[in-house]
């Protein structure tokens, strides 16, 4: 019921709420364009160890040598017209009080109070390329939990980072993983020691502010045996007329009997190319869950994946995508079963409106010998008008017979009867439509922390009622 209130209270326009931009204020801004020199410069400013510089330079070579993807949405990116590194403030804010005022006001305008203020103690927030605020709750520290921005992680936990960085997603995995590996900055580093269960969700809020600035955050999460953690990030960007690029890499290592849930809601402005590689390795009896919401952006290509490497490991991938005018959401999930008795569930829900396009692209692979695998893939598309579209590209590669696999796909529209029924109870047509959409994505929303569910429903409502402008 809380949710319904939030939806109807929102009257302000998207531009006011999300389309603002604060005057840019940076302590260092690299030149536009990509070069070895620029990569060296980034690494030098961060005083990185030699191996990281080598890693970056190798990745840059790979990036240059790879063609653009020959599948999926057409990407028109001018790599020479992007800022690859911007450092907004000289030093990291130690406490919330140290965070500069204009940056705080940006968080205020983003509506973070609803989503985050309550949990501020656990927030790691990224503003531009560098985290400006990081605070780990005392208990977390005492439990040995490490929750840092990636740059600090590299400085403070060099052995762990060196051992795992770029191992689950090597630089050569794909062109954009290579780009990220070359110029990455920020992101989160999370380490949960054996048998530690982190009760509160760890939250990070990412944001792009400068024009033509690429955001290349890099996240690495390691859960030791028997531990559990929920990591949450929400993203939003102001609207700019020139295109921006977001190419992130998220690597997760879930060891035996550990549990990890990674929740993302992204709401990039409609000029952002959002190209993200997310992959988890799940060892014996580990459970990895990707909860992935994609709104906004011009093009999103994102297929969170789980490699089920140990017997009994489980993957759960739930995603929603919303595509409006000029948007293409190409999203889905991948489950790669390498061990016996592993199971996966992929639920994908997409909504297209005003000429938007959604694509479910998924992979289900079962290796030879991985008997007793159970997998359930379901994708539902809701198309709200005749100019919008949706399609499904499921790949299946099953090398084992003794498995149980189901795949279901539905495509639906909102019926005249449903709209009439809801309108007969006083709801305007757009509100009725928003309500149907809200119900459609409920299997996703119910997995979110309350504040995020409210925020998501509000965003969807703004999209539905045309408050987006």
């Amino acid at each position, binding site marked *: 019921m809380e949710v*319904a209130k939030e939806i109807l209270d929102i009257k302000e326009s998207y531009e006011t709420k999300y389309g603002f931009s604060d005057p840019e204020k940076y302590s260092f801004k690299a030149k536009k364009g990509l070069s070895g020199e620029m990569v060296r410069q980034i690494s030098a400013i961060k005083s990185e160890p030699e191996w990281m510089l080598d890693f970056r330079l190798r990745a840059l070579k790979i990036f240059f040598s790879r063609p653009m993807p020959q599948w999926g949405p057409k990407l028109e990116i001018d790599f020479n017209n992007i800022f690859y590194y911007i450092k907004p403030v000289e030093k990291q804010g130690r406490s919330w009080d140290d965070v500069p005022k204009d940056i705080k006001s940006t968080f205020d305008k983003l509506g973070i109070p609803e989503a985050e203020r309550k949990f501020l103690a656990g927030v790691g927030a990224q503003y531009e390329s560098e985290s400006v605020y990081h605070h780990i709750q005392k208990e977390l520290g005492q439990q040995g939990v490490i929750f840092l921005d990636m740059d600090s992680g590299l400085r403070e936990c060099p052995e762990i980072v060196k051992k795992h960085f770029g191992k689950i997603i090597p630089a050569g995995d794909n062109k954009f993983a290579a780009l990220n590996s070359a110029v990455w900055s920020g992101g989160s580093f999370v380490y949960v020691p054996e048998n530690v269960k982190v009760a509160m969700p760890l939250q990070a809020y990412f944001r792009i502010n400068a024009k033509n600035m690429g955001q290349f955050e890099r996240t690495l999460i390691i859960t030791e045996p028997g531990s559990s953690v929920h990591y949450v990030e929400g993203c939003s960007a102001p609207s700019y007329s020139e295109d921006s690029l977001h190419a992130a890499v998220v690597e997760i290592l879930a060891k035996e009997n550990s549990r990890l849930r990674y929740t993302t809601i992204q709401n990039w402005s409609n000029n952002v190319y959002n190209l993200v590689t997310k992959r988890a390795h799940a060892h014996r009896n580990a459970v990895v869950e990707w909860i992935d919401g994609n709104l906004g952006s011009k093009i999103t290509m994102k297929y969170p994946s789980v490699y089920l490497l140990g017997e009994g490991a489980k993957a759960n991938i739930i995603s929603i995508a919303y595509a409006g005018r000029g948007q293409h959401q190409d999203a889905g999930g991948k489950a790669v079963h390498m061990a016996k008795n592993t199971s996966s569930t992929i639920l994908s829900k997409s909504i297209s409106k005003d000429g938007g396009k959604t694509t479910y692209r998924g992979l289900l692979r079962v290796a030879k010998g991985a008997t007793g695998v159970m997998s359930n893939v379901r994708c539902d598309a809701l198309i709200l008008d005749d100019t919008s579209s949706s399609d499904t590209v499921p790949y299946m590669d099953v090398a084992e017979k003794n498995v149980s696999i189901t795949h279901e796909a539905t495509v639906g529209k909102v019926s005249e009867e449903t709209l009439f029924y*809801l309108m*007969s*109870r006083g709801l305007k*047509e757009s509100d009725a439509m928003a309500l149907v959409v*809200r119900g459609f994505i409920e299997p996703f929303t119910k997995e979110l922390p309350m504040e995020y569910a409210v925020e998501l429903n509000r965003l969807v409502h703004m999209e539905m009622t045309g408050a987006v402008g």
Partner: protein
Amino acid sequence: MKLEIENLHAEVDGKEILKGVTLTVKSGEVHAVMGPNGAGKSTLSNVIMGHPRYRVISGDVKLDGASILSMSPDKRARTGIFVSFQYPAEVPGVSIASFLRSAHGAINGKEMSVIDFQKLVKEKTKMLGISDDFIKRGLNEGFSGGEKKRGEILQMAVLSPRLAILDETDSGLDVDALRVVADGINRVSSSPDMGIILITHYNRILKYVIPDFVHVMHGGRIVRSGKSDLASFIEEKGYSSLEAT
């Protein structure tokens, strides 16, 4: 409140169904509209609510003297018209509670606080003997016929319209469920500000909900009007006995 249906002609998919219906309903009155299948009863309720598939050919429907025919369904709802549908749409994932709060807010122009609204709903569910869990379920999602009807009556109780049209609210209910629903209607309709049109095929609900007036519809017209004894007459003689007149 005064609803006036004046010589109403309406069609669906190019076929004329209502062929001159005239009926006036005032606050505090319960009108039963009876008739065989195909008489145009459900068409009447859909036309009054403004279903987009139905087209008015001529005639008028006025609420307190002003025509409502150019209004969209949501505007009609906001003037205080409510239809309890025979086959309400399923809206998966939207709980009755959150839907009702939105609807209540839309009709009253302002949403109640969560706490006040919970109180209101609690009062109504208690009155209707509906469990608290019921309102947490998805709107009509996987509901049995009886659950749908009770859900509609609950909506009516919470939204407290000025004119309620109950379309075949009794159909498909067993005797116990019928009694519960009828009891609910009586409780809600005890408000002197509300007028009711009770559309039914059978008169069995009229044993529990006593109408002030009974109208018999046939071939898209009201062919006979009377007091509640007309219902018993029809039960004995059947609709065909009226055709000759």
